[in-house]
């Protein structure tokens, strides 16, 4: 099974690498984001202090997750928010369809939500005759082309201005061709403004859920989040069950590090604290509010003390922006809802380490992701753990698909490797032959063939260091 799937990321990545426009778009965009993030943290110690604090808050929240979720539900319910629980994406989709149908809703306007992408909600609703329109500019752009997000914060980052100009002139009614960004934005705004007013319901994601107050926090830059959650008569929010924190005080440092890590902003243009539907005598806000809390494999991740760190993620995207692989292949190559380093550890845990063996080996383990992660998720260590889980089963492991990535070929390769490296006499014979005849290996030999696509064949030295040290008389004891 894994031999087939391993080709998947490799093939789609190889294809992406051949697209110079795509590579230029990503490189330029990621360079900009790296630069802007860096400018937000002129003092490395301030950054480390904030990372420590944020990591502590997220770890503490997870430690108390079951109690916090209960407290949150009680408080939110008291505020008038209807809380629903979904174990699977199918259940979450059905719940939302049920809410919309009970109100006779035909149109839904959406703020940005990666959980709704995880659920493939748009496609599901469309199958059931409900229009779901993305209102985040980036999401709107990709929805016009039937694409999925290539980045969790900047979903249309794979496209440049000219590509969007062409697309708008073809797909938006009565739109003229322009490469002026303000004019392009105005075109989208004109379409969306009417949709906000007409929509029967609005949907949003959640950045943080506050247990003590039952508040949903929503970070955004375009105001579309506020419009989606406040203008239509019904607001449905969706979130993963890991999003809860204890207090409003916990939110401040997380918000500070989220916007700085994501887009290099000290604050976002909008920060919404949504606590209740429209109250008696109030003039705005939805009349009805629902929250769907999704598990989709999260509680299984939660049960593992090491892997639990995956759930600390605040979805800033900094790991992608700094990843040398992501920067070159872009988000679509991962064929996963969450691309980049966080996707490489999250997707195999939810979909199975065997079937997404391609992703866990699609990393040089350079560590750039772990270095910038605002909540210090040890992504490289988790990748190694998942590589182990894919081929072996740890005692008591709950990892999805554990052991299913094992192949006889790889087993044998490592067994032989160990045999050669734990017997110095054998190792000496092998290196003797390698130094004398290493150059004789054909360039088409397995492993060497792949290596030599862009490199010359590695040729061993004529004498190994061990031999030369012996000849020179360096003491060996």
């Amino acid at each position, binding site marked *: 099974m894994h031999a087939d799937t391993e080709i998947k*990321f*490799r093939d789609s*990545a*190889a294809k992406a*690498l051949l697209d110079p426009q795509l590579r230029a778009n990503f490189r330029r965009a990621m360079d900009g984001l790296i630069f802007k993030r860096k400018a937000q943290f002129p003092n490395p110690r301030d950054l480390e202090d904030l990372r420590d604090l944020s990591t502590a808050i997220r770890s503490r929240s997870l430690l108390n997750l079951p109690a916090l979720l209960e407290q949150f539900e009680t408080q939110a319910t008291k505020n008038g928010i209807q809380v629903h629980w979904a174990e699977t994406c199918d259940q979450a989709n059905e719940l939302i369809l049920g809410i919309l149908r009970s109100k006779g809703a035909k149109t839904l306007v959406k703020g940005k939500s990666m959980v709704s992408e995880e659920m493939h909600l748009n496609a599901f609703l469309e199958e059931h005759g409900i229009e779901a329109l993305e209102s985040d500019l980036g999401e709107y752009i990709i929805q016009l082309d039937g694409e999925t997000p290539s980045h969790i914060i900047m979903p249309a980052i794979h496209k440049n201005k000219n590509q969007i100009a062409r697309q708008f002139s073809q797909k938006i009614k009565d739109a003229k061709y322009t490469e002026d960004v303000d004019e392009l934005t105005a075109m989208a705004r004109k379409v969306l403004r009417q949709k906000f007013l007409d929509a029967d319901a609005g949907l949003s994601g959640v950045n943080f859920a506050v247990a003590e107050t039952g508040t949903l926090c929503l970070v955004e830059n375009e105001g579309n989040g506020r419009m989606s959650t406040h203008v239509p008569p019904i607001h449905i929010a969706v979130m993963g069950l890991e999003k809860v924190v204890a207090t409003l005080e916990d939110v401040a440092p997380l918000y500070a590090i989220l916007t700085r890590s994501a887009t290099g902003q000290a604050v976002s243009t909008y920060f919404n604290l949504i606590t209740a539907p429209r109250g008696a005598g109030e003039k705005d806000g939805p009349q009805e509010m629902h929250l769907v809390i999704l598990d989709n494999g999260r509680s299984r991740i939660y049960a593992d003390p090491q892997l639990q760190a995956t759930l600390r993620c605040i979805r800033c995207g900094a790991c992608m922006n700094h990843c*040398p*692989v992501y920067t*070159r292949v872009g988000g679509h190559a991962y064929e996963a809802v969450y691309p980049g380093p966080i996707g490489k550890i999250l997707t195999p845990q939810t979909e199975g380490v065997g079937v997404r063996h391609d992703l866990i*080996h*699609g*990393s*040089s*383990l*350079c*560590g*750039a992701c*772990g*270095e910038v992660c605002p909540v210090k998720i040890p992504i490289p260590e988790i990748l*190694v753990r998942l*590589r*182990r*889980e*894919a*081929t*072996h089963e740890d005692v008591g492991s709950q990892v999805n698909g554990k052991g299913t990535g094992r192949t006889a070929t*790889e087993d044998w390769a*490592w*067994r032989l*490797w*160990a045999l050669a*490296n*734990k017997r*110095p006499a054998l190792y000496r014979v092998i*290196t003797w032959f*390698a*130094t004398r005849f290493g150059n004789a290996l054909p360039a088409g030999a397995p*492993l060497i063939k*792949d*290596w*030599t*696509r*862009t*490199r*010359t064949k*590695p*040729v*061993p*030295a004529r*004498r*190994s*260091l*061990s031999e*030369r*040290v*012996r000849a*020179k008389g*360096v*003491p*060996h*004891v």
Partner: protein
Amino acid sequence: MKEVYFYATCLVDLFFPDAGMAGIELLEAAGVRVIFPQGQTCCGQPAFNCGYWEEAREVARTQVALFPKDIPVILPSGSCAGMMKNHYPELFHGQADEAQVRAFSSRVFELTQFLVNELDVKLTDLGEPVKVTWHSSCHAVRDLGLVGEPKQLIAQLANVELAPLTREHECCGFGGTFSVRQPEISGAMSCDKAADAEATGASVVLSTDGGCLLNVNGTLEAKKSPLRVQHIAEFLWERTRAR
């Protein structure tokens, strides 16, 4: 007299013995007695990173046994030093010999860190003026915090000008088995690194790690560039030894 062990690492043993010899010479020139136990093979990192921990442990165990004396173990590699120093304790967690392995790990040093931080070496440059650039290995930087030491050593050389890479901390694309499991991505990263190095106008790229050397040198050679990567130990020794 101060004594240390030298651990070659498999890549230096097989592909870059000159760098290993230079490392030993640099230590000896600093007045240290260097012991090179025979029977050295590999630190176990390839198997460890691929999840084959039993195999990695079997090999690591044979290596630890070669260094019984309570003296420093010096490696001409940030990546392998990081493996032995930081990942052995994880690999041996809960094993009967965990304490013994932890004691070994605490004695592991990367060569340039040892030269600067423990020996405080002073180098005299005897070479012609030259422009170099520096490629930092990912594991050296992120596993060992190896950032300043190589540059401090280069700065001691009066006739050497250091021209920085545009993306000094970006991975060269080696990544061990990554380079053969994902040859296209790895190749793209290597080509970018080679181009970055060429753009500096330097006549040599310096690095601490055999993996990066093998990868970037192979890439430069394939594109017929005159530029080469050299292990920093070899470069330092060439410029400072009395002829």
